[in-house]
């Protein structure tokens, strides 16, 4: 089934591309938080660099806007469509329309839930679980496989919180000497991280026997650092501090030695997405359903 689709598509796409520049429609979720606007900006800048004609549509967090944008892209007969989905469900119909028009669809960031996986070519995104694994692996190395960890979880039930926890625990399960002794949700906020760490400090008699703090994002870890300093502890020295995001304030904390490691969540991911799309347009062949954008671990200068 998929092969036929690919074969049909080959002819059309060769005929369509020719000398003119590739046109890509990109439907973005919106501009909430810090990460997403940076992602949008990078997509636009990277497209310019690569000579891609990018049609950008901001769905402002509404799926109906996103569906409208995708249908507009189809009507404009773009060469490919990249979607950063608002929600996972409700995509079958519009993706079928794109398939009928022979326009390949790529997912960025979040996943979609469709019965027929051939409706999109591939998903290109970071792997939250890999981020957790990287943090865990670093910690295993730094603690030589023996460590009692306190964990600051993200918002309960959110995908990054679930996946980062899973990845981190997967590594820990390999080391009998490593375990999570306290875990609470700090809701991804500095305020939350600080409150939770304060409670941990009291509950563990000043983090006695605790060797590390793993936070699902930097903001919570920054709050935890403040809480520890106010309790007379030395974060980064008394306790190993590892988290995810690599935001500017975390860079500063790493430089000061108050944190030890942070896994970067890239926002400049255009350079990973566009080559996959253009290569596929030139040479459509079956791709794995998920292409993982590599995650980098940044460690403090002293480590």
């Amino acid at each position, binding site marked *: 089934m998929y092969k036929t689709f690919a074969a049909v598509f080959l002819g059309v796409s060769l005929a369509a591309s020719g000398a003119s520049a590739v046109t890509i429609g990109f439907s973005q979720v919106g501009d909430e*938080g810090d990460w997403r606007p940076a992602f949008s900006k990078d997509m636009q800048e990277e497209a310019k660099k690569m000579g891609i004609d990018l049609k950008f549509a901001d769905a402002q967090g509404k799926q109906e806007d996103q569906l409208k944008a995708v249908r507009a892209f189809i009507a404009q007969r773009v060469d490919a469509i990249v979607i950063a989905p608002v929600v996972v469900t409700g995509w079958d119909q519009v993706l079928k329309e794109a398939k009928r028009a022979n326009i390949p669809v790529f997912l960025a960031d979040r996943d979609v839930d469709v019965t027929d996986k051939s409706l999109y070519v591939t998903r290109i995104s970071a792997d939250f679980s890999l981020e957790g694994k990287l943090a865990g692996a670093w910690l295993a190395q730094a603690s030589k496989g023996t460590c009692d960890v306190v964990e600051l*979880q993200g918002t*309960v039930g959110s995908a990054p919180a679930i996946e980062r926890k899973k990845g981190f625990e997967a590594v820990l399960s390999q080391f009998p000497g490593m375990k999570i002794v306290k875990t609470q949700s700090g809701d991804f906020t500095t*305020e*939350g991280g600080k409150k939770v760490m304060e409670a941990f400090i*009291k*509950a563990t008699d000043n983090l006695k026997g605790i060797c590390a703090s793993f936070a699902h994002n930097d*903001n919570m870890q920054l709050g935890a650092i403040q809480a520890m300093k106010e309790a007379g502890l030395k974060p980064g020295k008394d306790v190993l501090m590892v988290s995810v995001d690599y935001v500017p304030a975390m860079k500063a904390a790493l430089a000061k030695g108050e944190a030890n490691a942070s896994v970067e969540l890239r926002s400049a991911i255009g350079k990973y997405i566009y080559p996959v799309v253009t290569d596929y347009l030139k040479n459509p062949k079956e791709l794995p359903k998920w292409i993982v954008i590599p995650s980098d671990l940044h460690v403090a200068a002293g480590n």
Partner: protein
Amino acid sequence: MTAPLPPSFSGRLRELTSHRATWPLLALAVILVVDGFVAPGFFTIRIVEGRLFGSLIDILYRAVPTALVALGMAVVIGTKGIDLSVGSIIAVVGATIAWRIQEGDPHFVILLTALGVGLLCGLWNGFLVAVLDIQPIIATLILMVSGRGIGLMINLIYGGTNPSFTSPLLQGLSVGSIGLVPTRLIVFAAVFVALWLLIRRTALGLFVEAVGGNAAAADLAGVRSRLIKYSAYLISGLCAGWAGVILTADTHTSDPVSVALYIELDAILAVVIGGGSLAGGRIYLGMTVLGALVIQTLTTSILMSGLPPEYNLLVKAVVVLFVLLLQSNNARNAVLALVRRRKR
């Protein structure tokens, strides 16, 4: 006459059970006792880094923002109003502080600016409620919805996303301590006394309660009800502004999207646990602080309990329901009746 208890005792017991502080205090005691079992060393207070240190201090310390907001809320609810915008006011104040620090204003000017922003927000709410006669829940919803966006826009002025800063003055007020005592507790005590004097040592409290109880009657008795309503929202804005200073300095950063999220609900809850009625007409300042303490004790207990975080909200809801049931005469009587029937 054959009663085993002298009448004076049962009379006093009845007086005790009907006193409005009894049940919230009882709830607080129960939560604390549970904590003592769950978390060893819960009641230990030590001196660390030259100040008091321990879970009990944490509770007082963390309760300050909610209690501040709740005090303003108590006055607004006294006028039969409600202020849903307090969390957003905190976000705007926080963004303003981070921005002005970036711009290099003197820090005491920034402090005044921050409080001024809180007051300005109160001015806006008061205008909608007292002058335009918009229902309080709708009027304050406007700022509630837009406030965090305004905070983000302030961040955009100087291109700061999650800006972090240090300010000896502001952080001194928020996380510093004078002698052994955290500064924010001292400042809170000062704010409480000032507000209490304003409400109970002038006639403002009586006027607020008159307007909340029966605005038409208050008007005929010469109370300028619009002005009174206006002042309630100003007080609430100022209290939220101060909470914004404390929270922003506490985290060293301005995070308009998520700072003090749902604090308005905690504040309303604090007022209600403190015996206030959303129907207005009464202000209980001390009881409101007690309500905020109950909520914070509960929150801190949950954080210390080691319970999986998935249960946080559920546990909080169940305990709050329990406290409110304790306060309800009807619920208490129903339980008593049930117990008596069992005995027979």
